[in-house]
């Protein structure tokens, strides 16, 4: 639309220039001196002389000036129209460009906003999934740790129960071990030997 307007305007300026040149050529052609009449054409010559008298050089100069002024006026008016058209075209072009750029920018911004929103949504979903996975892992880890603690506790208790006799024995030995005299133990040692006497005799008698 704008290009057509521009071409039309250039065409109008070109036509105006051609018309101006034609007018100058035309005016220059009329300013040539008329051929002198010879013989029978005296009336015609007289008429021509009158015409020449009426349309003398001053009158012609006046006409030229008027024509020049008119032409200048037309040129000025056309220039003014051209200027107005140019301004209008420029303003329309500006408006058009503004509108186009605004629409394009709006469209691009809309796409950009949509892509930003999509990215944001994806990021939110990813974060939510990550949070869910972390919560799940945390729960699993908590359960595993709890299970491990219970197992460790049970193992400790079991180990304590298994080694309790050693622990008590160690404690007794550490506490009173040096104070137990063997003579005091003799009665118990002999009682144990007495209880196993038959087996010992059997082993001594029939052993290798």
């Amino acid at each position, binding site marked *: 639309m704008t290009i057509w307007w521009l071409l039309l305007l250039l065409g109008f300026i070109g036509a105006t220039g051609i018309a101006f040149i034609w007018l100058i050529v035309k005016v220059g052609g009329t300013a040539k001196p008329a051929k002198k009449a010879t013989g029978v054409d005296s009336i015609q010559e007289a008429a021509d002389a009158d015409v020449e008298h009426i349309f003398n050089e001053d009158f012609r100069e006046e006409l030229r000036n008027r024509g020049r002024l008119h032409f200048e006026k037309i040129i000025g008016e056309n220039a003014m129209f051209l200027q107005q058209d140019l301004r209008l075209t420029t303003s329309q072009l500006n408006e058009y460009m503004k509108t186009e750029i605004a629409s394009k920018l709006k469209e691009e911004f809309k796409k950009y906003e949509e892509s930003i929103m999509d990215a944001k949504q994806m990021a939110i979903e990813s974060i939510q999934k990550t949070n869910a996975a972390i919560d799940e892992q945390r729960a699993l880890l908590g359960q595993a740790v709890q299970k491990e603690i219970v197992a460790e506790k049970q193992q400790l208790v079991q180990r304590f129960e298994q080694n*309790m*006799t050693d622990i*008590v024995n160690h404690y007794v030995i550490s506490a009173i071990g040096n104070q137990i005299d063997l003579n005091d133990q003799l009665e*118990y*040692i002999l009682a*144990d*030997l007495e209880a196993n006497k038959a087996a010992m005799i059997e082993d*001594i008698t029939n052993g290798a």
Partner: protein
Amino acid sequence: MAHESADQPQLVLPLLVVSPVDVGRLIRDVETLDNLLMQYDLKGATHEAKMPKVSLLLDSIIDANKLDLLVPAQRQRLLAFLQSVRTQAPVLHISFGADPAASFIEKLMTWLRREISPQVLLTIGLQPNIGAGCLVRSTNKFYDFSLRQNFTKNRELLMASFQEVAKT
């Protein structure tokens, strides 16, 4: 022993002779004495010569069996008895938590010689970690009479006591 004659009384081991090492030492002492008296005999010394000074162990076995070692036959009898003891006597190994005193060993040997065998020998070991009681090893068997074993046997009782304490 089986090879001793039936009319002679059985020789006895004194309580001082405890371990196979003591028996070996006695054999060595008897052999030394036998060699010494044989030297006297070869030199033409009278049999009424005084008995040389002997070790405490040998003295104890002489006293216990009323032996006259100036008589070669009795020396040979003692030597044969000791050798048979060294090869055939049962040996018990007993470990205690502390080094036992001589009186303790004497009482223990008295019981062992009376109840187990008159010729039983004893080797004594040291196991400080058993605390109280003893570990007995015979020819083929092992007996744990330690305090630890006693605790292990009565583990349920110990557990019940701990649980009662834990409840309170």
